[in-house]
C-alpha cells in the first residue's frame, strides 16, 4: 500500500524523501514532485493560500489514487503527503515520491498521481492577495485534459 498522509502540519520534504531511499536493492529510480505556494500569480502578489478539504473523503480518494499508481506502474515505493490549512509563499503543499526499478515507471507514476489528484481529490484553494482580496481558485480545463490521458 502507498504511504499517504493528509495533514495540516508542515513537513520536511528532504527528510521524507531520504526515508524512502534504500528500501529495495533493485530500486534504480526515485522521482519526487513538490507543489509549492507561489509568491505571485500573474500580476498579483499572494499573501497566503488556504486549502480546505473534506475529512474522510479526501484521504480515501488520495489513498486509492496512490495505490492504483503503485500497482499500475509496479512502483517499489509510493509516498504522497498533502497539507491542508493556511500556507505561505514558498511552503510545500504536496510531496509525491515514487520509486521503481527504472525511471519510466517512476516518472509515469508521479505524473499519474498528480494529474488524478488535480481532478479527483477534494481540496479547494482560497488565495489571498496582498491587496486584502481573496478568491476561490478555479479548476482548470487543462487539468481535466491531463487526467483524461491516463484512461485506458
Amino acid at each position, binding site marked *: 500500500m502507498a504511504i499517504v498522509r493528509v495533514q495540516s502540519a508542515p513537513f520536511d520534504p528532504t527528510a521524507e524523501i531520504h526515508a524512502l531511499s534504500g528500501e529495495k536493492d533493485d530500486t534504480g529510480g526515485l522521482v519526487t514532485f513538490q*507543489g509549492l505556494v507561489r509568491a505571485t500569480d500573474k500580476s498579483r502578489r499572494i499573501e497566503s493560500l488556504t*486549502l*480546505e*478539504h*473534506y475529512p*474522510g*473523503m479526501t484521504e*480515501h*480518494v488520495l489513498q486509492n489514487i496512490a495505490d492504483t499508481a503503485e500497482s499500475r506502474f509496479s512502483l517499489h515505493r509510493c509516498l504522497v503527503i*498533502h497539507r491542508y490549512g493556511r500556507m505561505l509563499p514558498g511552503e510545500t*503543499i*504536496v510531496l509525491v515520491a515514487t520509486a521503481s526499478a527504472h525511471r519510466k515507471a517512476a516518472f509515469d507514476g508521479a505524473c499519474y498521481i*498528480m494529474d488524478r*489528484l*488535480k*481532478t*479527483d*481529490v*477534494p*481540496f*479547494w*484553494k*482560497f488565495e489571498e492577495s496582498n491587496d486584502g482580496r481573496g478568491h*476561490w*481558485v*478555479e*479548476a482548470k480545463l487543462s487539468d481535466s485534459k491531463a487526467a483524461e490521458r491516463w484512461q485506458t
Partner: protein
Amino acid sequence: MTFLYFAWVRERIGYGREVHALPDGIETLGALLDWLALRSTGHEDALKDRAKLRFAINQTYAFAESPVGDKDEIAIFPPVTGG
C-alpha cells in the same frame, strides 16, 4: 440525511452542514437538489448552475441519477483544486 457544503457553496448557503429527513417521494440526487434549492435564496444561488458543481454520496462521487437514501451523507462542492 446529512448535507455538507464546501468552499463557495458553503459561503453562498451560509453554513457548512445541515441535517434533514429525506423528503417524501424523492429518490434521486437530482430531485433532492431541486428540493434543496427551494430552501432559501442562499441555497438557490449556490445550486443555480449544476454544471459548476460536483456531488458525493457517502464520500463517493455521484450524479443526478444516483439514488439517495435517508441515512446518506450528501456533499456539494466546486470542482476540486488541490495539488
